[in-house]
């Protein structure tokens, strides 16, 4: 466990500068929005503008998923990493958890910064939603977003590792692996759907307690059966990446 934590700490320390700069930029952006509100911006425009950093998260974490591995190759530290007597999944999971932490910090900076700098605007925008309801649903959305981030990272890690197993056209190979694995996992979801049809759907209107904010939806189900196969497929891809990383990736100058 200490070996895994050491790898995680290393990955977190490696990303402290970009993370610090990005957090600073987000806070500066919030201050800019605060200034614009005092200069007469409509509250709705301010709310939409504040959400912009969240949209930036998508390309940023796609890039980071790739960059955390790429930097090891680019700086030749992969020679250190791959001779360590640890299972391959320690390396890939440490990078995945490192990205979870990065995401959580950036989310906290964005939402915390927005609350501190634009607190009054938020209160005016959500007068009917109790704070407990916002926190509870926020946490659920956060956990779902972690799941989405995990699958993005897993797909990109596999594509990167496979691309490093070929001598030429590595970018093209990575792209094809991304397309192929997405298709495969989708197929797995469809194939296994009958097996998991017994799993009851999740009534989202009850999970999110929409009645507490006056929204009366009759039924808003999320069907798990077609998703379970894709989740299993994604887990298999993670195992495959770790196995390739430990056994088959070749490092040469």
């Amino acid at each position, binding site marked *: 466990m200490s070996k895994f934590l050491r790898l995680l700490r290393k990955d977190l320390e490696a990303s402290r500068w970009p993370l610090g700069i990005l957090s600073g930029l987000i806070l500066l952006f919030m201050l800019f929005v605060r200034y614009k509100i005092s200069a007469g911006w409509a509250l709705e425009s301010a709310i939409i503008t504040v959400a912009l950093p969240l949209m930036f998260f998508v390309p940023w974490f796609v890039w980071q998923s790739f960059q955390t591995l790429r930097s090891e190759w680019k700086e030749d530290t992969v*020679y250190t990493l*791959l001779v360590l007597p640890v299972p391959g999944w320690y390396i890939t999971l440490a990078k995945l958890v490192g990205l979870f932490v990065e995401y959580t910090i950036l989310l906290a900076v964005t939402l915390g910064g927005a609350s501190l700098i634009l607190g009054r605007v938020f209160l005016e925008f959500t007068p009917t939603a109790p704070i407990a309801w916002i926190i509870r649903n926020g946490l659920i959305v956060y956990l779902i977003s972690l799941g989405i981030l995990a699958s993005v990272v897993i797909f990109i890690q596999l594509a990167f590792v496979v691309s490093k197993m070929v001598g030429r056209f590595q970018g093209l190979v990575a792209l094809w692996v991304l397309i192929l694995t997405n298709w495969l996992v989708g197929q797995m979801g469809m194939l296994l759907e009958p097996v998991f049809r017994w799993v009851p759907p999740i009534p989202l209107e009850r999970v999110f307690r929409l009645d507490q904010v006056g929204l009366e939806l009759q039924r808003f189900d999320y069907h798990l059966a077609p998703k379970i196969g894709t989740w299993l497929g994604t887990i298999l891809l993670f195992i495959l990446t770790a196995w390739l990383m430990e056994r088959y990736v070749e490092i*040469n100058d």
Partner: protein
Amino acid sequence: MIQGSQALVVRDLRKKYPGTEALKGIDLTLPKGEICGLLGPNGSGKSTLLKCVIGLLQADSGTIEIFGQKPSRHTKAQIAFVPEIDNLYRWMTVQETIDFISTFYEDWEPQRVPDLLDFMRLEPEKRVSSLSKGMRARLKLILTLARTAPLVLLDEPFSGIDPSSRDRIVEGIVREFKSEEQTMIISTHAVGDTEQLFDSVVFLDEGTVNLQGNAEDLRVRYRKSINDLFKEVFA
């Protein structure tokens, strides 16, 4: 657990890269407790052979046994490997690098570190990015010598570094090598005054073993130093 009387046994090892055959059926047996010089010009297959042993490359055919075991995660724990390339995290300090590496090896001996840092004249708080090539080579050697790894692989440890760092490294190896517990392979294309280190030598040329044997036996048989023999073989 370390098994067998041989540290390393390589049989008919072959490895191809696109357009070239780096190893053409290498056979090699290295007894425990020796320092072996793996000698050959650039491109002779020295690094490829060492990378196959540590597991950074997969051989196309042939076998490798490290203390009787095939290369795996478990044999990685028994090997201290110093690649020729700069493999250190540049944003870490010397101390952070030492702390990082020490976590992964049970044979790490923390009490040796202060003495090694002193001997190699390195300051723990210095950032790796601010070290010269010679200093980084010395740090890499500390990471190896602070362990009692049964098998030590040094790939071109003297390549491109200043004479004073080279002397420190040679002295460090002589001082810290424990022949009763360790076996070492040093690959180099510049034999020079490092030949005093070697108990045995293997001359590698274009992926094949050209000559191998006990260093002293070869000196007596050919009436030449290993350095002169090297020059003659690869002239």
